[in-house]
């Protein structure tokens, strides 16, 4: 029997080497599923994030933007930073409140909505609730629970939304987006899960790249094996605040990492949104860094009436927002 001679190399070094080989060419992998054919790592590490239009999507409600950037440190560190980041600290990102939900999503977990600052967008949100406006994205059953009251966010309005958010968060935690009631209180029935599936169906390369992660989540399907980290937000959408729910999933292979961040419910503005992250370890000027691809995709009724240059302008605005968000995130995590 032939004797296999092992190279004089330590086990940890071998693990690292194998890991490097497994992700031997992040740039090739990046170009295989994204719109970025060529990127300059050194330039990305020292400059602004690179953003681009996603592939054209047939459904007029959909919009997609892709970006890539480099941050110092390993993918696992970046994944952890994404997990911990609170965008509400930055007013320009239009996140009014951000609240991580630990444990079972009871109504008490959403009590902070009652303390939202009384800005014009929040007042518009309260007015819309009091009138049970057609623009509110609710199911018929949810809308029927509005019985009026003191018309204050700190009172009846806040109680109503705490009930809606808790119900939706519980449904998602137990059965993914498939368990969510449709938005049908004032017209066409729209399901967040269908929108998320539609966004991914129109971007098959991305769907394939993230299949391993997505198939274990509740995104566009029933509850998966992966445990979501749930959160709620109040966001500013076109001069009216919206109460929203999100879920973050991360997967660290030991070398590369992936994450999926979905807004699976919003009371207005967007039907659903999904941000995907692919992270690879790279060496930039001798410094261990992470190359990050980020894909932002959104479904919104407001987009359905836009064509031509208006759609192009919306994409440009979204690209600016994404670039701004990445810049702020990098600044925060560099501290």
């Amino acid at each position, binding site marked *: 029997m032939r004797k296999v001679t092992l190279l004089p190399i330590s086990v940890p070094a071998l693990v690292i080497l194998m890991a490097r080989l497994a992700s031997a060419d992040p740039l090739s992998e990046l170009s295989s599923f994204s719109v970025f054919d060529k990127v300059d790592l050194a330039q990305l590490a020292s400059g602004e994030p690179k953003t681009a239009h996603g592939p054209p999507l*047939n459904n007029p409600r959909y919009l997609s933007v892709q970006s890539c950037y480099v941050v110092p440190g390993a993918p696992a560190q970046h994944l952890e930073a994404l997990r911990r980041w609170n965008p509400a600290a930055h007013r320009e990102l239009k996140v009014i409140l951000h609240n991580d939900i630990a444990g079972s999503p009871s109504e008490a977990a959403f009590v902070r909505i009652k303390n939202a600052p009384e800005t014009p967008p929040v007042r518009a949100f309260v007015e819309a609730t009091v009138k049970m406006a057609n623009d509110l994205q609710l199911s018929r059953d949810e809308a029927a629970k509005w019985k009026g009251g003191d018309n204050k966010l700190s009172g009846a309005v806040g109680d109503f939304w705490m009930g809606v958010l808790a119900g939706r968060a519980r449904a998602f935690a137990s059965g993914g987006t498939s368990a969510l009631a449709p938005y049908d209180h004032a017209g066409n029935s729209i399901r967040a899960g269908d929108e998320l599936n539609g966004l991914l169906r129109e971007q098959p390369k991305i769907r394939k790249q993230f299949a391993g992660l997505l198939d274990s989540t509740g995104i566009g399907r029933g509850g998966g094996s992966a445990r979501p980290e749930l959160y709620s937000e109040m966001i500013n959408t076109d001069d009216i605040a919206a109460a929203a729910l999100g879920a973050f999933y991360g997967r660290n292979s030991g070398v590369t990492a992936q994450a999926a961040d979905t807004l699976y419910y919003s009371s207005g503005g967007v039907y659903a949104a999904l941000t995907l992250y692919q992270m690879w370890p790279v060496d930039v000027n001798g410094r261990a860094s992470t190359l990050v691809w980020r894909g932002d995709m959104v479904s919104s009724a407001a987009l359905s009436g836009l064509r031509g*240059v208006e759609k192009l302008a919306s*994409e440009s605005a979204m690209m600016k927002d994404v670039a701004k968000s990445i810049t702020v995130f990098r600044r925060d995590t560099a501290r």
Partner: protein
Amino acid sequence: MPAIFGRWIAFVICLVAIPGLFASDIWTGEYSFNETYVGNATVSHGQKRVVDFDESDTEIRFVLTPRIPLGVLRLGVEYEQFSFGFEGSALLPNTLQSVAAVIGLDTQIKNSILLRVEAMPGVYSEAFRTGSNDFNMPFVIGGTYIVNPDLQIAIGIGVDIDRKYPVLPGGGIRWKFQPHWVLNAILPQPRLEYEVSKTVTLYVGANLKETNFRVSDTFGTDHGKPQLNHAVLTYSEVRTGTGLDWKINNWLSVNAEAGYQPYRTFDFYRANFEFDQDSSAPYGMISFHGVF
């Protein structure tokens, strides 16, 4: 059958056909049909006066906006006809017509800058005649800087070799300065808009129009002024008014507007012969437009 009814029928057929023909999201585009009527007015050149004539302005525009890797193509056709109620002896043409292709591209050159290049090659003449070769190709090049979703700044130039000043600057700003309020001050149609609801917008504003047309080879001779044969006529007018835009659905919006026309000239500038406004009149406009 009066010409205007022919145009209306063509428009109605177009309106019925569009949703069926272009239900696919690949064939996106936009269309508009505008009809404006201006009441009796007078223009003069020295002692020469053309009195009590009315005006009908019909515009039909149909543009496909397919997405390509470089941006958004703009391919279509535009037709415009000014019909004036002049007396036979007037030294002005009763009809000015243009039919032109629309060939353009909207593209993004930076995260925040959109660029439009659009040419409109076609025939710009007095009433169309057999073998008319009054070809012209005005074009525009403009950029929009997207400061944020509420504020955009536009700047550009319009080029028309038949114009007295072939290159003219343009632009303006679009600024949503309050919820529901938009200052859409971009030439040639600056407006202050109030969004009553997601489907209804009220506005006050202006429309600055200027197009160059060639009159016929014998127009001058026929009217006792031979130097006007095959001359370039620049027709300019300004409308100021208030209007309402009602978005019924994505592919159909109705726009009604009324106001006053404070300025109008007919300028054969190369022959140094111009009719300026003496008195003007109110106008009414109805428009159907949408995207598909």
